């Protein structure tokens, strides 16, 4: 049964594409409201598939997928989805892109302007409001996408390796801004990455996806860093190094199960 604090729940899931075998089987997963959950695993293990299930873009072969206690039928408009792909509309300015979900949801003009202004300021994009996406740097585009994914206050924010294309410094800056922004907004996040350091820095809980095929959730880690964490200093602590080692072992274990079934 879905708990009061659970926003997304998967039970005994099996999923595959076309006539091919399942890529995930026997997956059980829940996310509590306000939690920052990361799915960590090697490429091609089915992490993005879980996000697509939550977004209602895929249907399972077996099992239950529930959002806020209700089965997901069709596209899930209660989530925000930040994919690896740049999905800013290239013919609209930054502020038009950020306000797009609100306009499509028939929010009043004044409210749209006010919320867009707030997010532009929050993500330091005020100076770029009237620029087109093609005129932005990679980091600015990611920030604009983050603003657009959050502005309509979705109950769950799905993020699929959103910073993979950024350089290390920019990625670190984005981690700080993301964690700060979602925690301030009380946002629930399901984040996908194959980067151990990234997972250790920003998550409340990490699930290792792998094994197989068909794969599944092979390990779970609740991170000990607390809600308020200083990402600039955290990564240089012994505790952080220990967590990284644990996650690394979990990931290696997931890889070693590849081909043996899970």
């Amino acid at each position, binding site marked *: 049964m879905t708990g009061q604090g659970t926003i997304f729940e998967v039970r005994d899931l099996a999923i595959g594409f076309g006539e091919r075998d399942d890529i995930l089987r026997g997956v059980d997963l829940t996310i509590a409201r306000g939690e920052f959950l990361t799915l960590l695993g090697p490429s091609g293990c089915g992490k993005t598939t879980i996000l697509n299930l939550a977004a209602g873009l895929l249907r399972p072969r077996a099992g239950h997928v529930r959002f806020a206690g209700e089965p997901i039928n069709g596209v899930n408009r209660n989530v925000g989805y930040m994919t690896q792909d740049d999905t800013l509309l290239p*013919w609209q300015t930054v502020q038009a892109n950020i306000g797009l979900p609100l306009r499509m949801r028939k929010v009043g003009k004044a409210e749209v302007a006010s919320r867009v202004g707030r997010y532009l300021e929050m993500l330091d994009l005020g100076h770029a409001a009237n620029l087109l996406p093609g*005129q932005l740097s990679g980091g600015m585009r990611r920030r604009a996408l983050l603003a657009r994914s959050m502005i309509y206050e979705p109950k769950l924010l799905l993020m699929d390796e959103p910073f993979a294309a950024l350089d290390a410094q920019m990625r670190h800056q984005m981690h700080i801004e993301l964690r700060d922004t979602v925690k301030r907004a009380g946002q629930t996040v399901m984040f996908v990455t194959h980067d151990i350091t990234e997972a250790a820095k920003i998550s409340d809980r990490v699930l290792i996806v792998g094994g197989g095929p068909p794969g599944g959730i092979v390990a779970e880690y609740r991170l000990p860093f607390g809600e308020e964490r200083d990402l600039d200093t955290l990564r240089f602590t012994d505790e952080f190094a220990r967590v990284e080692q644990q996650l690394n072992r979990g990931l290696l274990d997931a890889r070693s199960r590849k081909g043996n079934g899970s």
Partner: protein
Amino acid sequence: MTDTLVESRPIEQRRVALRRTARRHRVTVLGVQVLVIAAVLVAWELLSGRVVQELLVSRPSDVFPTLWGWVTDGTLLQNAAVTFRTAGIGLLCGGVLGILVGVVLGQAKTLAEIFEPMITALYTMPKHALIPLFIMWVGIGSALGVVTAAVIVFFLVFFNTFFGIREVRPSLVNSVRIMGGSEIDVMLRVRLPSALIWVVAALKLAVPQAVVGVVVAEMLAGDSGLGYLVARNAGLFNSAGTFAALIVLLIAGFLIDRLMSWVTRKPLEWKNSNSAM
């Protein structure tokens, strides 16, 4: 080692210098173009009647007075108006139909599977070869030009709209749906703007092609228009008149091309806005 950096030329000065260089380049190009045209006209004038029979090529000193005569007695304006009005109506009919059919087939996979090969087969037929058939259907006059231009424009616009709609990235469509967009939102905010670049590219080709279609129709079975002027003068072995009409078409084609580039610049601004930072 010094601790002060050598100050490079201030940005504003560099900008001024760059603008000056660009202006100088434009003036040079324009100057060479004027010289080439002048050289062609001089060579034409000198060679005509000496190397090539004047009956075949006329000469600028006959062609331009003929042209000026048409300007002053209203012949040029009257015939040009017929040609461009006909081409405009044909462009509108063929363009609207091409966009509509392109949007419908671009969205409906099964319909596209049925009709796209048929439309492709029709496209491969030389459109000007259909003019005799159109004469049987609509007779001679401006209706013939409209039908010819519309058919030519339809295929160009249809294929570009069709592929423009189909080539839209699924991730863009999915993101708009997840953000709360309806199917109408997907069409108006993603598919059509995304296809716009293709449609505009098609229109850049379609506008001059529409004029060509009308001119050919007028030459074959017209009673007015620039094509008719060419055909009538050629039929009378009036090479000065023939060349005058051809020069009008040349200038008109050039102006149309420039006009289309100017008109399509704004809607495609985003396409040229690649990383400036």
